[in-house]
């Protein structure tokens, strides 16, 4: 576990966004921005993931899916809300079906604003998430191991 900050695995989920932020998240993984230089690997399996990137303001049908993904991730875990919709609902805030931000459903640790969030901002968010991940791990250690 001590090496988690050297290679955090990332899970990305589209929580009812317009997919502008989603393609920017994917752009982060490709050669021009290349988050793999920070050891970040994109995974499709929530049980492998340390960081959860969520875009979009979450609609009622997506809520159980997001909760499910979060609960399947092992601790310590960090949630990053990508884009203004994920932060507070953004342009869709007044839509009848939108809950208005990821923090209505999950405890969000890091907010990355922008419409769409720029890859530079997303990478900054992920790097902050890695630091936080290490902090959470240290806290878990001091509280009696990471057996939780």
């Amino acid at each position, binding site marked *: 576990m001590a090496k988690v900050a050297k290679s955090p695995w990332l899970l*990305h*989920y*589209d929580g*009812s*966004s*317009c*997919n*502008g*932020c*989603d*393609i*920017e998240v*994917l*752009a982060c993984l*490709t*050669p*021009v921005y290349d988050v793999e230089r920070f050891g970040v690997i994109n*995974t*499709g*399996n*929530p049980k492998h993931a340390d960081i959860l990137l969520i875009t*979009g*303001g979450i*609609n009622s*049908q*997506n809520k159980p*899916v997001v909760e499910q*993904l979060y609960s399947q991730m092992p601790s310590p875990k960090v949630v990053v809300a990508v884009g203004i919709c994920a932060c507070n609902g953004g*342009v*869709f805030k*007044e*839509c*009848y*079906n*939108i809950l208005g931000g990821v923090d209505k459903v999950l405890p969000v640790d890091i907010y990355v604003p922008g*419409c*769409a969030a*720029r890859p530079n901002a997303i990478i900054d968010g992920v790097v902050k998430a890695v630091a936080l991940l290490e902090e959470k791990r240290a806290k878990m250690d001091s509280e009696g191991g990471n057996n939780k």
Partner: protein
Amino acid sequence: MSTRTIVPFGPQHPVLPEPIHLDLVLEDEKVVDAVPKIGYIHRGLEKLVEKRDFNDYVYVIERTCGICSFMHGMGYVEAVERIFDAEIPDRAKYLRTIWAEMSRIHSHLLWLGLLADGFGFEALFYQCWRMRERVLDMFEESTGGRVIFSVNKIGGVLKDMPADMLARFVNNFNEMEKELRELTNVFLTDFSVETRLRGVGILTRDEAIDLGAAGPMMRASDIAIDTRKLGYAAYEDIDFDIITSKDCDSYARCEVRIGEIFQSIDIIRQAVSKIPDTEISIQIKGNPNGEAFARMEQPRGEAIYYVRGNGTKFLERARVRTPTFTNLTPMLKTLKGADLADVPLLVLTIDPCISCTER
């Protein structure tokens, strides 16, 4: 007969950037039926037209989808302009054409990358997305945004591209064209890629008509329909052929989209050589009263925009019919009889844009 098993596919799946759920009914490894469930990205965007005035709504409708964002804005403003019977300046029409074709290039490159990822050719995925970034750089230089750039307004466009910038862009595309030939040849001639695409996901010409396929999915089944031929924006001044293929399989869909990338580069070249030097927007006074349609060829197929105004600043109704929605039924058709291992690939060949579908 072997026993039937139902395997859920999605909403969260490594191959899908966006959530859609399919219940795959299997007999051994063969898919015999697929039942879709959508609604994970439904936001209720069309209803928002009652809370935003018709000028502000451009920014909402552009966020229908982050990939063809520009064309959604363009479809909506064209529909509203038709209510006003407004003739927008020629330069604005040409600028819209250029941005629309740049969007098509970026969208098709994105799709080629995802397809490569779908059949497990990671290096090719990265190469496609590296090329795509060069288009995004041009977007950023000309509009300020990378994926959503809000340059449409009712009555024209908000930003102009100076002549030297346009010349430089054409130059960039000429350079890209050579590299793209090399890159796309891998899709068309590589042995392993062909084994994954040839004969997979057949959609015959009749099936494509019956099930209402749209865009490249339809043109790959040998139906020559392209909404650009209707001549919206500046397309009536532009000379281009409709690209079709007779193969009706995944390879054909790939071939059509690759052809369209080079076609778009050619359209941009033509548009830049003909662009007139006029104003870029006109002022439109009053509120829309009446109804209008606009049709548009998006990267994924034909999109239809409908707006109805009642003389106040809030429209009564705005409606979008998006290409992915009509392409879902042909997709389900191609899934039947496919191997389970081919399902991610077949879902990708329609170029699904779930955000558009569900709005």
